[in-house]
């Protein structure tokens, strides 16, 4: 009698726990669905509003006071040039710092400070980098509101991303590779340049792409350095027809970038401009999705192919 009572109690308890288990399973799926739903709502809303504006004229016209004639020529040219500066500044610096911390750094206080510092830098809000750039690049170094100043600002911003990616890529290379190189009499730098860097290049590339994808969408630091929002001309071409063929005049040119152009259009009350904002946003989202997708694909392939 007593036995059976216990058994039914136990069964009730088990059933209750199973119910909770299923309930959570459903909650989890719903939570994931909410995130997906928002993503698609955002994308589809922007496609409906922006798609009709996405003609070839939109890419080849300057911004204008008339919404139907406005385009993103100066914005995408500006974004390309700023990204070029960012990549040139951040990639070598980030990779060297990553290599140092992973391969050279002795275990001491200074190394620890540098490591904690890199982690902290990744958590600093982007607008703070904008304030640094405003004080340092724009005024103290006298670069003004130029492509160079913006590119360097974003380079500082993505430096931690590149450093962390480099370190992770290098860390996954087994010690035996290094020992093999040393056994043949290679110096540290020969080991690094002939073995460590080539083997970690795909991982580093993934990190660089993710960093640049983040930099493309950054708006706040660029606004903070005081970038103009109405630019109806292009910077001087880097390639010139006459001697010396290369010109660096564009580095000091005023500019606009995609997210700034979009912000400018979003903040206008006229609805026609907001359609332009949707179109610009669509281009921006496609850019970042392609870059992030490429990074995910690279990482996925890397994980499958490399067997030490």
């Amino acid at each position: 009698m007593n036995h059976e009572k216990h058994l039914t109690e136990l069964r009730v308890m088990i059933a209750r726990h199973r119910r909770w288990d299923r309930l959570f399973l459903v909650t989890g799926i719903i939570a994931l669905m909410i995130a997906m739903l928002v993503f698609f709502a955002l994308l589809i809303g922007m496609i409906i509003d922006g798609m009709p504006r996405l003609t070839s004229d939109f890419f080849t016209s300057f911004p204008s006071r008339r919404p139907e004639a406005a385009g993103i020529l100066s914005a995408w040219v500006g974004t390309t040039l700023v990204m070029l500066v960012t990549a040139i500044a951040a990639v070598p610096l980030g990779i060297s710092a990553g290599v140092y911390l992973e391969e050279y750094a002795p275990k001491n206080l200074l190394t620890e400070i540098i490591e904690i510092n890199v982690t902290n830098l990744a958590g600093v809000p982007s607008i703070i980098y904008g304030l640094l750039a405003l004080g340092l690049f724009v005024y103290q170094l006298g670069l003004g509101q130029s492509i160079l100043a913006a590119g360097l600002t974003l380079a500082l911003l993505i430096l931690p991303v590149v450093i962390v990616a480099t370190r992770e890529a290098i860390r996954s290379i087994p010690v035996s590779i290094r020992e093999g190189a040393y056994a043949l009499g290679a110096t540290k730098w020969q080991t690094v340049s002939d073995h460590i860097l080539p083997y970690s290049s795909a991982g580093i590339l993934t990190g660089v792409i993710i960093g640049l994808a983040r930099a493309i969408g950054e708006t706040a630091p660029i606004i903070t350095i005081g970038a103009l929002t109405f630019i109806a001309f292009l910077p001087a071409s880097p390639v010139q027809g006459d001697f010396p063929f290369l010109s660096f005049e564009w580095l000091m040119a005023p500019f606009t970038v995609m997210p700034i152009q979009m912000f400018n259009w979003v903040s206008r009350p006229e609805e026609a401009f907001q359609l332009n904002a949707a179109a610009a946003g669509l281009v921006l989202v496609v850019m970042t999705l392609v870059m992030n997708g490429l990074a995910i694909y690279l990482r996925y392939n890397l994980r499958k192919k490399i067997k030490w």
Partner: protein
Amino acid sequence: MKFSRRDDSKPENMKVSVQSMNKGNGAVPAPRRLQHSFRRNIKERIIESILFLSALFSVFITFAIVYMLISESMVFFEHVSLREFLTDTQWTPLFDDAHYGILPLISGTVVSSAVALIVALPLGTIIAIYLSEFAPFSVREIAKPFLELLGGIPTVVYGYFALLFVTPLLQSIFPGLPGFSLLSAGLVMGIMIIPYVSSMTEDAMRSVPMHLREGSYATGATRFQTAVKVVVPASLSGIAAAYILGISRAVGETMVVAIAAGMQPNLTWNPAEPAATITTYIVQVSLGDLPHGSLGYQTIFAAGLTLLLITLIFNILGHLLRKYYREVY
């Protein structure tokens, strides 16, 4: 250096080549050999120094940030007392009747971050538990990159979404809601932060060793019981770090609030009102052209310093939490 006997069998040949190499090396006068390795060492040293300087550069960035914010703020605090800055309830630095109380900006920041965190922390945690403990492999393989893409969307696009999609939607539910509100900005910010919270939380939970779960299952626990009573407590330090990261993201977020919450400083704790945050004030000033060196120009550095201090407190808190709650398996 030539091989003298080419027609020999292989092992023999190698031996000879090694011998002749030795001979060749021996023929080089000692000073030149030393010189060679000296040059090699110098090159190694130079490269190491360059790499070291690159690593040190990140410390320089931190110092530059702190120096820039403090030096400009010092000038600001010569004109405005710290007491006024912390207790005045109005922030109108650009008006004729200027007030410099940071409180309205802080209230905007706190309210918008709170709304965002109410969305992001529960949803992020649930998604993380689901992906780590419940989801089959195939779902995880699709959901993780998808969340990563969601986290990669530019914030200005989220701002557009908040202003032109979420606000009208909310207005159809709450008819009195103004066109700019902390609520809609905070909600979208919350969605934006979900991927950061969920991916870090999931990483922490997946690093809990399998045998702890197996032990739990062996005593008859369900997946939900295992998740809540074994995996979550074991990964608490990582989850805390993920939450802290989420908080400092929300506090430092700029574009969503700048676009969707209006930019009027407003001392309020009501999310249905428009207000400015610390970050949107900086954006607002930067959009106009204030002369370099004016008091208005220095206010954005004082606001920035406040923001940096707030995020710094959270970062240190996260560091301590990680240190004290670290589980050793």
